[in-house]
C-alpha cells in the first residue's frame, strides 16, 4: 500500500480514484448500519431457529399469527447441523439472535444447558411428555421425534428379500448394497451410530465396512442413493421416506421397521437465556407442545412424543415404536453419550473412512 507517492508529478489527480473507492466502502458500511438499526418493530419479535421443514413452518405460521397477534415470529430454517453451526457462532460472538431453538440433535441441548445458554421453563404442557424425554431441570423438552429406520428399493428388492433389521445388514449378501448417512456430518446419523455401536459394539461397523457399506452425506443423500438403485438398502429417517413418498408417489421406496427396533432421536425445544422477550418465548414454546403445534409436526411426518397424538400418515403408532426402540432413551444415556462423543466419531471415522 506504499505505492502512491511515486506518482509525484500528478499526485492531485489521484484524488478521485481513492475517493471513489473510499466512498464505496463508507457507503456500504453506512447503509448497513442504517439498515440494521432501522428495523425497530412495535410488535415483540420472537426468532426461532429450527430444522423443521419449510412446509411445517408455512403450516404453523398462520396459526401463530392468529394465536399471537402481538408477536412477530421470524424463522431461520436450515439443516439441524447448520442451525447448530449458526447458533454456536453467535454464542462465540456473544450475540445470540435466537429466542427459541428446535433442532434434532439432543446432545447439543445438554451442552447448551451446562454452559448456561438456555433458560429453564417448567411448561405446564410439557407434563404430558414421558419423563425419559424431558430434561429433569426443565431446560428443554422433546417436541418431536424423528425415527431412524431402514428403507429398501422396492424395484430391486421384492418383499420377502428385504433385511429384517439393523443386525441383518452384517450378512455377506448385503455386500456393496447398503448405504447410510455420515455421522460426522449429520446429527441424526450420529445419534444412530451412538445407539447401534452401544447395542452391537464396533464389530457391527467393522463388518459393514468389510461389506463396503457407503456412509456419506445426510439423510437426503441416502434417499437418493436408494431411489436411484445405487444402493438397495439404506439406514435413514422415517420422515425422509414418508416425505419423498408423499411428494412423489412413484418413488420406489419401501419402509422397513427394523425388527431389532428403530433408533429414536428425541428432538428438543428450548428457550435461549439471551432472549429479550422471555414471556413471549414461553407462549410460543407452549404452543409448540399444544395439540395444534404437535399436529403440525405430525403432518411433517415426525412423531409427537405424546402417546395420544396420532402418528404420521402411513406410519406405525408411536407407542409401538417407543416401546420397541433399539435402545431405551434416558437422560443418563444422553449424558453418557456426550462423554463418548469424540470417541464415537473417531472410532467410526477410523473404521469407515480409513
Amino acid at each position, binding site marked *: 500500500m506504499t505505492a502512491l507517492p511515486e506518482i509525484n508529478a500528478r499526485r492531485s489527480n489521484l484524488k478521485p480514484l481513492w475517493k471513489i473507492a473510499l466512498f464505496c466502502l463508507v457507503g456500504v458500511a453506512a447503509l448497513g448500519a442504517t439498515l440494521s438499526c432501522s428495523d425497530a418493530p412495535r410488535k415483540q419479535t420472537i426468532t426461532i431457529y429450527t430444522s423443521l421443514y419449510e412446509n411445517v413452518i408455512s403450516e404453523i405460521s398462520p396459526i401463530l399469527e392468529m394465536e399471537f397477534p402481538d408477536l412477530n415470529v421470524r424463522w431461520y430454517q436450515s439443516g439441524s447441523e447448520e442451525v447448530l453451526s449458526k447458533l454456536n457462532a453467535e454464542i462465540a460472538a456473544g450475540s445470540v439472535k435466537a429466542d427459541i431453538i428446535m433442532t434434532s440433535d439432543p446432545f447439543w441441548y445438554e451442552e447448551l444447558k451446562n454452559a448456561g445458554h438456555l433458560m429453564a421453563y417448567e411448561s405446564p404442557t410439557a407434563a404430558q411428555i414421558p419423563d425419559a424425554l424431558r430434561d429433569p431441570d426443565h431446560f428443554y423438552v422433546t417436541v418431536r421425534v424423528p425415527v431412524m429406520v431402514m428403507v429398501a428399493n422396492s424395484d430391486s428388492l421384492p418383499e420377502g428379500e428385504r433385511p429384517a433389521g439393523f443386525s441383518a445388514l452384517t450378512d455377506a449378501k448385503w455386500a456393496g448394497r447398503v448405504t447410510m448417512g455420515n455421522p460426522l456430518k449429520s446429527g441424526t446419523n450420529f445419534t444412530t451410530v451412538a445407539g447401534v455401536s452401544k447395542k452391537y459394539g464396533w464389530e457391527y461397523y467393522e463388518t459393514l465396512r468389510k461389506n463396503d457399506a457407503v456412509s456419506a452425506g445426510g439423510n437426503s443423500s441416502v434417499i437418493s442413493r436408494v431411489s436411484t438403485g*445405487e444402493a438397495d438398502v439404506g439406514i435413514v429417517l422415517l420422515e425422509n421416506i414418508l416425505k419423498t413418498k408423499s411428494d412423489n408417489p412413484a418413488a420406489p421406496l419401501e419402509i422397513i421397521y427394523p425388527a431389532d427396533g428403530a433408533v429414536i432421536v428425541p428432538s428438543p425445544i428450548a428457550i435461549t437465556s439471551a432472549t429479550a422477550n422471555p414471556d413471549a418465548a414461553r407462549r410460543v414454546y407452549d404452543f409448540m407442545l399444544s395439540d395444534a403445534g404437535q399436529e403440525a409436526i405430525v403432518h411433517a411426518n415426525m412423531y409427537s412424543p405424546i402417546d395420544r397424538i396420532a402418528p404420521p400418515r402411513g406410519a406405525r403408532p408411536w407407542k409401538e415404536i417407543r416401546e420397541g426402540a433399539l435402545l431405551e432413551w434416558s437422560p443418563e444415556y444422553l449424558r453418557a453419550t456426550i462423554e463418548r462423543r469424540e470417541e464415537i466419531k473417531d472410532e467410526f471415522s477410523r473404521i469407515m473412512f480409513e
Partner: protein
Amino acid sequence: MNPRTLKVGRIAFGIALFALTVLPLALVLARSFQNPPTRTPPPGLESPDGPAASHSRFTLQYYKKAYGEGANYRAMVNTIVMSLATVIFASLIAIPSAWLVTRTDLPGRAKFRFLLVLPYVIPPYIGAIAWINLCNPRVGWLNRLAGREIFDIYTLAGVVWVLGLFYFTFIYLNCVSAMENTDPSLEEAARVSGASPGRVFLTITLPLMRPAIFSGAFLVFAAASASFGVPELIGSPGHIQVMTTRIYSSIKTGGLDGYYLAAALSTILFAVAIGASSLSDWLAHARRVTALTGKSARRSQVRLGRWRWPAFGYVAMVFAAACVLPFAAVLATSFMKVAGNFSWDNLTLDQYRYVLFERQATLRGFVNSLMLAFGTATLAVGIGTVLAYLKGHPKRRSGPLLDACVNLPYATPGTILAFGLILLWSRPIALTDTLWILLIAYFAKYLSFAVKALTTNVQQIDTTLEEAARVSGAGFIKTFRTIWIPLLRPGMMASWFLVFMPAFSELTMSILLKGPGTETVGTTLFDLQSYRDPPSASVLAVMLLVLILSAYGAAMVLRPKAKTAS
C-alpha cells in the same frame, strides 16, 4: 490534494480492506487459542470443577487435539495430493485448449472459446451430483450404457476428475486472455526462423503464459483445498478424508466448542494457502513478461494441418466431459419423477411447477442472489483493478499484507470465513442476518479472482505506453482511463464474470449467514436437495444455468469486437 490527506485516504482504504477480508480470519485464529464463552451457570447447575471458565482464558487444548491425531495428518496429505493433482489435471486441459482456441485454425474455435467457459457456471456441488449419476459403480448411466462397471467415481481420481473439470476454467480464462493480449510478433519471428509450431509453443508461447498459468494454478489449488461439497459427496463413499471434511465435521457434530477445534485445524490450511500463493507468485514473477505493447494488432494463426481434426476432437471431448455430460444429467434429472429412471412414464413437469410457481421463496432467492452477485462483482472488479495495478505494475509495490487480504479468505473453507464474519459483524455494527454480510462474505471470498486475473493483465502491459502518455502531458487519471482501462477491459469483463457466477450460486457461507428473508439461490438449492428431492434441485440448477448462460451470452454479443479481429 496534499500528501497528508492522501496518506490518510490510503490508510483508511487499507484499513477498510483489511477489515473486510483478513480481520474476520484473525478473529477466528484468536478463538483457536481460547476457551468457549460460558454464561453464569443456572442455579443448581454449577460445574463440579469450580466456576465456569472465563471467556478469554488462553488454552492450547485445541491445537493438542488437532495436531495430536494421525487422522488429521492423513487428511492433510490427502488434501495436498488432491489439490496438486487437480492443478495438474486442470492445466493439462486448460493450456492446450486455450492455445488451440486463440492461436490456431481450429475448426469452430470462436465457438469453443466461449463454450469452454461454461463448466465454470455449474456449481461444483451440482456437478458432483451429476457425475455421481453418471459414474457411480452400480447404476451410473455411463456404466449402464457400457453394460458393465467401467467407471467408479468414488475414488481420489474421481474427486480430481470432477474438481479439475470445473476449476480448469480458472487457468483457461487466464491463458485465453493472456494469449489474446500478447504480441504475436515474437511467435512469428520464431516461426519465420524455422521453428516448428510445437517448438514455438514450448519455447515462446508457454513462457509468455507463465504468469497467467501460475496465478490460475494457485486459484485452482486453493479452490480445491478449500472445497467441501465435492470431497464430501464423492470422497467420503470412497473412504477419502480431507481437511475440510474434518473441519466441517468438527463444526457440525463437534458440540459447543466445535468451532474452536475447527479454527485450530484451519490454521494449517492458512499456512498452506500462504505457501501456495507465495510459490505461485514467485514462479509467475521469475521472469517478467511485458509482451502487450499495444503497438501490434496483427495476429496470424498457426496452421494445424493434419492435426486440425484430432485437435478438434480433443477440444470437443473436453467440452463434452466438462459441460455436455453434467448438464445433460442435470437437465434429464429435472424432468424425472424418480431420479435415474429412464422411462417415458417417469417424465414429469411437476418439479418445475413446484419450484417455480408453488414455492414462494424461490423467486426471493433469485432476486437476492442477483443483487448480491451484481454488487459483489462490481465491487470486486472496482477494488480489484486498483489492487492489481499495485500488485502488477513494475514500479508499484505491494506488501505481503495485501496478498493476505486477497488470498487468505479465498483459500479458507467457507464455514470458517462465515464464522469469522459472524464474530466481527455481530456488534457493535450488527450486519448479521442482512444482505450486507453476504455481500461482504462474497467480496472477501472472490476478490481473489478479480485480482489474480487482472494482475496477470497488468503485468503483461508494457509500461512504455503509460510513460508515453505521461510525457505527452496526460495526468494519472487520463493515463488510467485512456491506456490502462482499454487494455484491461477484456480482463475486467472476464473478472466480473469470474466473480459474478460463483457469487450467484454460493452455498456454504450463505447457509450460515442468511437470515429470515435473505435466502439466496444457494440456500434454495440446499433446501431443495435436502428436503425435497434431486429432481427439484435439478430444476433450480437448470434455471440457474439458463439464467447465467443468457447473461453471459448477452455480454459476449454486446462485447466490442474491434480488438480481437485479426
